[in-house]
């Protein structure tokens, strides 16, 4: 019965939008990209300058001489912590995205009484100001023996990621037609099978957005990293980055180089995941 609905679409050449012509769009894109890169230019130039030239006064100038001392120092201080960040961010992003996908699927596609109230209660949770929960958080983690450990930090990131990932996936799954669930159920699929076989494969763009958000948030988090893990050899890279700047003197070339280094893994994730923003990924199946 469902075959008619999901058979391949008739092949028609789609008309392109917008019709304003590609040139205007291209010009706008290039201009906006140039504007977006202004701060990046400042950042990169400062990272490659000798320390005396790396400041606000010389921000627009090109480096007098390319000086890699900032990059070297930043690398020396940051590289031990990159590993910690990876060990933290990968499991935390994956688990929280999967939990969010499951929650989102249940809330969007398996409605039950009270589901919306529960969702609202979950969602409100992401607005809690983190500064103020540090004390109870540390006490709680101590009581379950996770304080000062990477697993403890991962747990914290997963939990505070749940509202956000649930929101992203609930919304994403809401966009997919309900008939797909019905059809699969008629075919004898259990809820778990519907999730695994029907929904999950279609949720790639949702995963991309969710993973970008979670990866970036967790990678760039500083407050939890510094309070939950006191041992500097175990801390994430953001804490080390922050420590490049002291109270009484700062070499900005090192800090800027550090910022670029610390951003590389995240940028890499964007490039890798960006591939999945392919138009028409779901065309032909979403009907």
């Amino acid at each position, binding site marked *: 019965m469902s075959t008619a609905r999901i058979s391949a*679409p008739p092949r028609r050449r789609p008309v392109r939008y917008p019709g304003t012509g590609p040139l205007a769009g291209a010009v706008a894109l290039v201009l906006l990209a140039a504007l977006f890169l202004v701060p990046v230019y400042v950042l990169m130039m400062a990272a490659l300058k000798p320390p005396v030239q790396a400041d606000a006064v010389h921000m627009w100038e090109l480096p007098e001489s390319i000086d890699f001392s900032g990059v070297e120092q930043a690398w020396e201080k940051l590289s031990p912590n990159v590993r910690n960040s990876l060990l933290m961010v990968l499991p935390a992003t994956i688990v929280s995205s999967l939990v969010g996908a499951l*929650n989102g699927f249940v809330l969007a596609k398996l409605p039950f009484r009270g589901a919306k109230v529960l969702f609202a209660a979950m969602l409100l949770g992401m607005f809690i100001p983190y500064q103020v*929960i540090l004390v109870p958080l540390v006490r709680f983690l101590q009581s379950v023996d996770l304080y000062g450990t990477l697993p403890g930090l991962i747990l914290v990131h997963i939990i505070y990621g749940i509202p956000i990932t649930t929101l992203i996936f609930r919304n994403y799954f809401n966009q997919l037609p309900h008939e797909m669930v019905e059809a699969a159920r008629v075919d004898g699929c259990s809820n778990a099978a519907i999730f695994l076989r029907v929904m999950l494969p279609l949720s790639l*763009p949702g995963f991309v957005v969710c993973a970008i958000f979670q990866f970036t948030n967790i990678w760039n988090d500083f407050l939890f990293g510094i309070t939950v893990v006191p041992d500097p050899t175990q801390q994430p890279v953001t804490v080390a980055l922050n420590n490049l700047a002291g109270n009484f003197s700062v070499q900005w070339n090192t800090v800027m180089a550090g910022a670029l280094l610390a*951003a590389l893994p995240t940028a890499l994730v964007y490039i890798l995941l960006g591939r999945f923003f392919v138009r028409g990924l779901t065309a032909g199946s979403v009907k």
Partner: protein
Amino acid sequence: MPVLTRPAAPAPHMTKPPAKTSAGSSRWRKHRFSIAVLTPSLIMIGIFVYGFIGYSVRVSVSKWQGLNPDLSPRDPLYQTYDDMFHTPRFQADLRNVTVFTLLFLTLAVVVGLVLALLVHNALAGRTFFRGVFLFPYALSFIVTGVVWRWIFTPSTGANLILQGLGVDHGPKWITDPAVAGDVSSALEPILPGGHFIQVELGVPLALIPVVIAASWQLGGFVMANYLAALTAMPEELREAASLDGAGTLRYHWHIVLPWLRPVTAVVLILLGHISLKSFDLVYAMVGQGPGFATDVPGIFVFEQTFRALRYNTGAAASVVMFLLVAAVMVPYLYRSVIREKN
């Protein structure tokens, strides 16, 4: 033209669950998957969010100042809140976070939408442009704040470029203590006890560069959200529109924007949560600003709790922050709950 409406709602052909022995066990069967999925999340949120908020509420009505936890209640209980609302700094913070949130949400969503449409329809270089616009989001607020501060320092930053373009007296940017569109004097005669408001109610000009910086940082993320939605958009909508001969504007207005509406809701919530808790970027970029022109509750909570050791005031401020969010979010959630029932 009927095809220009949203995709039709699913046909209401509910498949009945197979009849089972007792109603209770069949309900359990029907929902056991949902229960198994949601329970762990709900327990965690219950402890880590609501449990901790409860703790904060308790601290906020206590006498706790200094390093020794003192949870004995203040008399009257609301005294900490009363004192806090009377300080000009906290009043400025509430003003700033409101203004900042409104401006930032607007700018970031507009920028993100424009970028997404341009990138989505680009003939070439999509990957490149997507990368360029997303890259700022990868950078740590702690450092980009400093770069933006340099750019918006009047004598050395963007104004030098403006000078090159012939503008001699550029704006004072983040050093500008002025508040535009002050309505507090207009409110004074209307509100009883008008002396309560000790700050100018308007748009602090120093906040505008912060809005720009924040939108730069998050515009790419908004774009990514819209790109995902555009990707998931059924080709039929486009085809139908083109068959109907709808023009570009018409197509975007009647098809694309309605399709993106749910994503916009998500984006607003995500940005709102960043905006209301904004701390890193503001702290690194401008701090409290001239006359608290750029101070936000996040900084207030941090300084009161950890520098002044006024644990009760810090907790009270964060409870207020949370309630403010709830005041905006709960009606929204309530409405969307009703509206979704189609």
